[in-house]
């Protein structure tokens, strides 16, 4: 029966509940804007990654390579867009 019990998913579920609780702290505790946003961003991205890997089974088929290269390419494009825009509008305007 051991191999039938979805231990990975249960652990993932517990972990995502913890991440949600941590994110909620930003509302209940009185912290600075920078600290709050940092916590929100970090927990949000870990949460997104968790959903993708654990609950959307990104790495469990033979398409693993294609899926992960697409994800990495998407992250690259997003980062370049954000930092490029910051460069144009904030750092060098």
């Amino acid at each position, binding site marked *: 029966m051991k191999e039938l019990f979805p231990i990975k998913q249960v652990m993932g579920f517990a972990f995502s509940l913890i991440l949600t609780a941590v994110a909620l702290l930003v509302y209940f505790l009185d912290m600075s804007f920078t600290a709050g946003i940092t916590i929100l961003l970090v927990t949000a991205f870990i949460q997104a990654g968790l959903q993708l890997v654990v609950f959307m089974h990104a790495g469990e088929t033979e398409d693993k390579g294609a899926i992960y290269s697409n994800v990495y390419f998407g992250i690259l494009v997003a980062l370049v*867009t954000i930092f490029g825009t910051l460069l144009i509008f904030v750092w060098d305007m």
Partner: protein
Amino acid sequence: MDFFDRFAVPHPSFLIYASMVAIGLTVIAVLVGITYFKKWDYLWREWLTTVDHKRIGIMYLISALLMLFRGGVDAIMLRAQLAIPDNKLLESQHYNEVFSTHGVVMILFMAMPFIMFFFNFVVPLQIGARDVAFPRLNAISFWLFFMGAMLFNISFVIGGSPDAGWTSYFPLAGNDFSTSVGSNYYMIAIQIAGIGTLMTGINFITTIFKMRAPGMKLMQMPMFTWSALISNLIIVFAFPVLTVLLAMGTMDRLFDTKFFAIGDGGSDMLWANLFWVWGHPEVYILILPAFGLFSEIISTFARRNLYGYKSMVASMVVISAFSFFVWAHHFFTMGQGALANSFFSITTMAIAVPTGVKIFNWLFTLWKGKIEFTTPMLYAMHFLPLFTLGGVTGVMLAMSAADYQYHNTMFLVAHFHNVIIPGVVYAMLGGLTYYWPKMFGFMLNERIGKWTVWLMSIGFVLAFIPMYITGLDGQARRMYTYSEATGFGPLNMVAFIGAGIMAISFALLVYNIYYSVRYSPRNIGNDPWNARTLEWATHTPVPEYNFAVMPQVKSTEAFWDAKKNGHEIFKGKIEKIHMPNSSGLPFIMSCIFFVFGFSMIFSIWPLAIISLLGILGCLVYRSFEKDHGHYIPVEEIEETETKLRGAK
């Protein structure tokens, strides 16, 4: 009457009223014609509800050619207005509307459907698949594009065309400066078509990853399929930006949000920024499939395998990444500092390197080849030098310091037409000539075809080389007139003559289709060009199921090796084939999208809500619909195969 006032054209002229009458008469003629010849049933059964990738491809092709005509008429009007100094043919507002629609129509409603036509028709055949991964989604893609295009095209007779340029920069496109509904058309029509394009991207990535013929590894795919894969990858990462951008623009115009306002925390420059975050990858979405087509054509008619297959693939992958790193070169003069400009300057120049690799690979493919100058090959041979010229002026524009001199001049206009026409348009027309026999079972006339190419190139050179000169002399783009003292007159007249020759070339293309329908021989076999890839291995016309037996692939040029080296690609015997069912839902839902778009543009809220509910209804219906497709029995396949073999 107040309600109907909003549909009036803000700046009417004789030309617009004449177009209204012409559009009305054409619509009536088409409807009467279909009814008279009793074709409604045929049209509905075989075309409007089809999910067959080949038919969807052909509908893309027809749309693209119609839009090429429409955009071409716009272009002729622009050149006619500029042909002599102080011309009074078009007034300034009308001129603004014409250049805005010319740009949008040519990029989004001509070039995009043209490449979609090639994706749809060629990719499944080239990888030995029976259809795309999501055939129903493919139909939705097409109909959304079609409805978006139609919505955009009625703008100039109902309510007024967009007039803020194809880039539609804020604050000009905002409510303060563009008071007509024109820019609403821009936001919503492109949004609807863009959703369709995004779906196509997902569809074809899945198709290429999951549905290749047994044995075909990624590095054995034909070059056009590779270019389609990379191009669709860029679509999936670039088009969401456009979706968000247009949604924000729509909200600014309809609901008074302040995303692109000058005050209230908005930034009008953000529009330019995000527009080009999408817009620059978009030009690579267009040019990469064109490169893929030229690779197929050059390799076929040089009778050699493509030189440097791996470097071709690598250069496209590099281009796909770099296309996202360069967008700020479209607004070097917006006010950011030297550091930002230098960064984007360098990345832009770097992109010339992989492009140069491709040019050299084509040259080396030609080296010691047995070159055969057919019409598609002639397009490719004219493409190489003309496109290189456009590439070199592109590197000139990439230098941010020098760009302060070039920006917003005719030099820029000459540059991007110089890459888009010999790059994209030549590939589309060459590819069309190349794949025509596979679609329709006869070839286009070679003699008329070669005249078309030569006239196109002569017209192109006359129309656009003078613009480089007037641009360097200071002629600004988007100016509807200029004084005689500027001295721009003679060269603009030359450009007008060039545009006229290009129009003649297009007319010749249309005549070629008519001539070939009537006189071209029908006994051409399945492989009239002696080509190298799988799409030529099946019958002409291609049966519904593409391949009776799934091909087995062992090399890059599967069909060539089957012909020359005795590889066996069709092993095994015929089995029943599973095919998707036709469905009217994509067409119906897209029609509702059209109504939704129209009511949003004119702020008719009750109708917008009703049509939105209609769209949701279609989605819900689809979710609960049971559709398992159908099987074609073995007897029917054998019958079709015998008939097609006999027709050879």
